[in-house]
Every structure is written in structure tokens, then in C-alpha cells.
């Protein structure tokens, strides 16, 4: 049984097998797991287990991802936070949770988001994007260049 899934651990442990080494990303907003897989890419050797639409006491309905033999980078955490700000990350080594954290968005997000404003100077691909985080949950950011404020639904990850 995994140490990781403290919430309804029996049920989830049954559905998603335990990890020896890797990362568990829990409490993803239901429906965002595939986007998160997209952020992580699949060009690594370990197996990936994706659970969709689990019932959760905390968030109602959630997705969960277990990634074998891979730990997430800070940049990946920041990207995932944009998709699902209340996700929890557990780093597993030898079946034990050695680190567990929630993402904290930086004050400025460089080169992770595409500005949806077609008149923004960053619509020229030679210009790197930069966004100021006005509020993390629900997400609200302002483009450093065109100064438009926008919500999560309006932005697109690079």
C-alpha cells in the first residue's frame, strides 16, 4: 500500500499501484490530468498511471497522476500550478514520501504563457512572454507587455 494517498488511501491504493520511486501529483482539478501529462511530456522511461474523476473529500472530484522514476522540476511545477493551482506533489523514494508540497506561483511567470491578445507585441515569436501574477487562485495574470489582465480560461500554455 502506498504511503502517499492519505485520502481514501485504501480505495486509491487499490486502483493505483504503489510507487517505489517517482512523483505523485494529487488533487488535480478533474479533467486536467491529460494537460498535465502534456506539460510533463512522455519522453522518459518510467510508467505513468493516470486516474480521472476520483471522488475526493477535499475537492469533490479530482484527477491523480503517478509517475515512476521521475521527479518534477520547478518549472514543471509552475506550469502545472497554472492549470491546477491546488495540486499536491509528493516525491517518493523507496516507497516513502520524502517531500510533499503545493505549488507556489512566482510573482512573475516568464515564457510559460502565450498572450492571447493578437495585438500584443509578443505575438511576434521572437519576443519572450512575461506575466505578472495578480492572484493565484482563481488565477489572474497581467501581460507585462500589453498590460491586459486575464483569467485562467483566457490563457494558453506555451
Amino acid at each position: 500500500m502506498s504511503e502517499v494517498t492519505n485520502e481514501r488511501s485504501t480505495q486509491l491504493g487499490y486502483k493505483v499501484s504503489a510507487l517505489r520511486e517517482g512523483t505523485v501529483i494529487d488533487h488535480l482539478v478533474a479533467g486536467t490530468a491529460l494537460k498535465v501529462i502534456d506539460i510533463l511530456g512522455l519522453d522518459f522511461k518510467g510508467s505513468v498511471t493516470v486516474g480521472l474523476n476520483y471522488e475526493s473529500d477535499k475537492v469533490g472530484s479530482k484527477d491523480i497522476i503517478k509517475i515512476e522514476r521521475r521527479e518534477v522540476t520547478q518549472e514543471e511545477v509552475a506550469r502545472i500550478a497554472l492549470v491546477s493551482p491546488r495540486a499536491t506533489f509528493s516525491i517518493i523514494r523507496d516507497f516513502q514520501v520524502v517531500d510533499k508540497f503545493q505549488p507556489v506561483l512566482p510573482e512573475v511567470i516568464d515564457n510559460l504563457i502565450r498572450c492571447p491578445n493578437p495585438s500584443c507585441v509578443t505575438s511576434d515569436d521572437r519576443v519572450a512572454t512575461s506575466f505578472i501574477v495578480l492572484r493565484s487562485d482563481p488565477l489572474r495574470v497581467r501581460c507585462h507587455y500589453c498590460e491586459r489582465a486575464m483569467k485562467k480560461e483566457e490563457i494558453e500554455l506555451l
Partner: protein
Amino acid sequence: MTTETLSLVGRDLISMRDFTRDELLAFLDEARAFEDFREPILLGLVLGSLFFEPSTRTNLSFSGAMQRLGGSVLGFADSKVSSTAKGESLADTIRAVENYCDIILLRHPLEGAARLAAESTGLPVINAGDGTNQHPTQTLLDLYTIQQRRGRLDNLKIAFIGDLKYSRTVHSLIDTLAHFDNELFLISPPTLRIPAEFLEELDARGTVYSEDEDFFAVAKDVDILYTTRIQQERFPDPVEYEKVKNAYRIDREGLQKIGDEITLMHPLPRVNEIATDLDDYPGSAYFEQVRNGVTIRKAVLSMLLGKPRV
């Protein structure tokens, strides 16, 4: 903080968001001393004036300000003559132009272009309008005109009327007025209401405001009426434009119903929003705004270049 201790030398003027209330007031205080000032304090200095889209008024106003202070101006007024037409990036254009001048003035159709330009050079950059985003010297001259006409920048009732959806001038002035304590009336047809994000900011800052379609319902209480042109190019459907184009035409007869205390402002050019019979109305301040534009720009050039009055 007194304005004497506050230095703006070497700063860029890209967005009103970059400046504190004290810094805004420093520009306005300094401008007062520049009203009739014409000494060659900028002798030997060059303004690089890059207009990637035409704007006769802003271009001439800055050129006039620079030349009245003894400086000179080079640049272009149309992007077709610049090497951008050959595919050069804006950053590269700026890196070349910085060798020819001491301060850069940029008008560009893309929003954020002035910010990008400022990040590409160590010279001060002044934003002369970036798409629908910012035009900070317009906002400064509007504040200066309000201060001059009403003697203060707070405790005023200010109505904005017309195109509140697309007007950069209105957005920037409303945003900047949030540094001061005023009541705002936002008058527009439903299709041209101010975007929700501006209302959220007003709420967050505790600004008192109301939205209405009928100006005359609130007019009696208003100190300042800021009118804007409803721009035909904003309407994909000409029928929609026809419906609203004359909705907020102000003339002398209409204004007399509400007294002669009101200050009437407009960023110009006007089409027919303000009837010409109001040009000699005592409250009309729109031609004064043009004159104040040169005054403000003289102060801005002097302050950013670190060449004070002697």
C-alpha cells in the same frame, strides 16, 4: 515627499502604472514652470522620434516641445520608410537608433512595443501610444488640464461619455484617477461599456462609480465631462455604428440645460461629438488640452534627460 527630492532622470515613460502618485504630481508640478519657458536647456540633445503608425498631433507636439527647448529631432513618421518594412525586429531597430539620439519616442500599433523598446536600450524611452494600451503623456496632459481648470485632482465628479470600451485615453485616465478620490460616471451605449476588468480594478481600489446610458440623468452633478470619439473602424457592422454614432452629441443648447459650471474635455480629433458652437463656451477645455500637451512634453523631456530649468 517633496518633488524636489524625487528624480525621474533616465526613467522610461511607458505606462501610467509604473508611476506613484508622488511621481505623477512631480510631472504636473514641473510642467507648471514650463508653461512659457523657452530656453535652450536641451541644446545638443536629439530626440529619436519613431512613428510606426501616423499620429500628427502627438508627433508635432513632441517635436515642438523638443525644439522650443533647443533640442533637435530625427526619425520617421511612417513605418513604410523604416527597415521594419524589410522584416527587421523592433529590438534591432531600437539598438540601431540608440546610436543617433539621446532619448527615444515610440508610437507603434502593437501593444507592449514601447516596453519592449525600453528593454532593448539604455536610453530613456517615451511611449507615444502602443495600440489600445497606453499613451502616458496624454494622461498627464489630461490630469494637468483638470488640475488647472478645477484647482485639484480629487473630490471631483467626472463623467466619461461615448466609447468606453476601446478608448485608450479613457482607460488610462480612469486607471490613473484611482490614485485620487473622485466619483466617476461611466456613460455609454450597452455595446461600448467599459470592460469588466476596469470595473474590477475600480472595485478593488474602492473608487465610487456608476454606469449609465443617459448622460442627462446625471449631468447636473458633474464637474467634468470627458467625451470621446466613437470610432467607426471599431465596428465590423456599419449598422451598429449608425445606431450609436450620434448618441452622445453635445451642443450648447444641451449643455445650457445643465448650467455653465461644467468643464468639457476631449482628446481630439473630434468628429461631431462636440458641436462647434461650444468652442467659445467658457467650460470648453479641449483646445487647452492641446496647448497643455506641449507644456507637459517639455517637462517630461527635461526631467527624463536630467536637464532642469536654469
